[in-house]
């Protein structure tokens, strides 16, 4: 009998945990009911109503949802958001892990590097977005660098119009998001890496595993709960991307960088279509919820927990 199963049995023997469990979650659950569930439920009600500035005007059934499905801008923003997810999530995980592994080595200045990588995380996003507008402008520093690089190697490219073309505007948002959030991924990964027991490396080392094999077979599985957490967290962040395109491109040009949440915001506060905004949010919500269920199911295949 392993200690693992014995601990499970021990837990089941304690009937008082039933009530303790409820007491522990009570403060959180009360606030959750009032400020999250109630708000969300109200928004569901709004989405099936005709809802104006001063509130309820009448029931609308599914009209708001039907209108939405016919709305080309909604589909455009859905596509944009999908683009943000498939670019931002993997890039951020990969870059954050590379940084964390690099900083997890015995090197000088690790603390300074870590501070530098984390600085964007604590910066006001509005200021960051405005600075990126300057950096990525047509004659800005980034394009000057690119132009001289292309010139140096005689490449037949010209520097892109980052903010002013439909082709690149989404990439500008991706770059800003990576700059802003990769530091957070790095810190979380670093905390996870530092929790990996040394003995396991030593054992793997003795077995003749090389650096990559140790990383692949020891580190990655052990930090998989962290990867799962970051994955979910970044998915949600990417689904809800708002401030970055809002400040940097206003969603343009031609709605090419408009995210779903930004469109929801416009519907609610520019067009005073609270009902349409709520319907959009619910479509988005159902989609993400389905995805999370799927992930929660899938995680059993690749996430490893010690206490299970």
């Amino acid at each position, binding site marked *: 009998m392993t200690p693992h199963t014995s*601990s499970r049995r021990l837990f*089941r023997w*304690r009937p008082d945990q*039933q*009530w*303790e*469990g409820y007491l*522990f*979650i009570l403060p*959180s*659950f009360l606030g*959750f009911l009032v*400020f*999250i569930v109630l*708000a*969300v439920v109200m*928004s569901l009600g*709004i989405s099936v109503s005709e809802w104006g500035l001063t509130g309820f005007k009448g029931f609308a059934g599914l009209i708001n949802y039907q209108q939405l499905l016919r709305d080309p801008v909604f589909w455009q923003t859905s596509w944009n958001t999908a683009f943000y997810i498939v670019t931002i999530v993997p890039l951020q995980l990969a870059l954050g892990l590379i940084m964390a592994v*690099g900083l*997890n080595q015995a090197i000088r*200045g690790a603390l300074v590097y870590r*501070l*530098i*990588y984390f*600085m964007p*995380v604590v*910066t006001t*996003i509005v*200021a960051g977005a405005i*600075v*990126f507008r*300057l950096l990525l402008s047509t004659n800005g*520093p980034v394009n000057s660098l690119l132009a001289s690089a292309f010139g140096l190697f005689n490449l037949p490219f010209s520097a892109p119009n980052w903010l002013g073309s439909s082709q690149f505007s989404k990439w500008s948002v991706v770059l800003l998001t990576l*700059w802003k959030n990769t530091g*957070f991924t790095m810190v979380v990964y670093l*905390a996870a890496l*530092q*929790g990996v*027991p*040394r*003995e*396991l*490396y030593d054992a793997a080392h003795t077995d003749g595993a090389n*650096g990559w094999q*140790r990383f692949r077979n020891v580190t990655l599985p052990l930090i998989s709960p962290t990867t799962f*957490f970051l994955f*979910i967290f970044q998915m*949600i962040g990417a689904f809800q991307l*708002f*401030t970055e395109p809002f400040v940097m491109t206003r969603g343009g040009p031609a709605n090419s960088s408009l995210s*779903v*949440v930004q469109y*929801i915001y416009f519907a609610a506060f520019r067009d005073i279509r609270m009902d349409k905004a709520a319907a959009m*949010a619910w479509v*988005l*919500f159902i989609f*993400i*919820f389905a995805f*999370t269920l799927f992930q929660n199911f899938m995680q059993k295949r690749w996430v490893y927990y010690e*206490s299970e």
Partner: protein
Amino acid sequence: MATIGASFSGSPTRLSTPARIGLHVLLFLFSTIMLAPFAVMLVVSLIPNTAFLARDFSPANFSLQNYVRTFEAVPFGRYYINSIVVAVSVTVLQILISSLAAFAFARLRFRGREAIFLFYLATLMIPFPVTLIPNFLIVKNLGWYDTYLALIVPSLFSVFSTFLLRQYYRGLPLDFDEAARMDGASSLRIWWQIIVPLSGPVLATLSIFVFQGVWNDFLWPLVVTTSETMRTIPVGLAAFVGQYSTAWDLLMAGSVIALLPVLVLYVIGQKWFVQGIALSGMGGR
């Protein structure tokens, strides 16, 4: 598996010299990219708006004038106090509440645990513009409009923090709880005396994250406050962005001032963070 934990180590192996140099080059490159926007921010904050619009970066233009003017143009000191009060209260209370719930979700067995948690998780994805108006109405009906309560209380209940802590608590070996329970410790005691001290790194990370989130939050404070004396820094900074023109100089100076306390907190937190890791290295066991 669960019995291992005698020593945790930050650095698995020593690197060879070429590998170390290569690593430094890579890390330095990342640093340059990360720092470049700050350089721009600093430069813009040090020159007058007219010089910036004309892209005139001659040294004669540089001065700290904008920083002084930021405090003159708006009651920035008051915004600062408000931001600190709100950010500190939210950070401390939110983590406490989330930690209790996360402990239950990760380490206590009770009926409906998984269902409730999934319910929590699902709401994590509700886009905030939609809860904005309902929450505003709730706060208004509670009589909290334009008070600290409106700025603080609705932010205390974070599904995200609960989720993060639960993930971490699930990773801690169950032996500790088991041993303590044998000694007759209550769940509350296990949480406060064993689990919380063991969560140093994650608490450091989370508090910095929560603090900066509240510190930089814009839409919510905007909507629930109206008087000048209740504004927070981001709401105050927005005053520099006008319909026809933006006071880039003041905006950037204000952003740099706003950045400082979070950075200081991070530097302090980082020290503690390393200690936390050393402690949770369970050397004390």
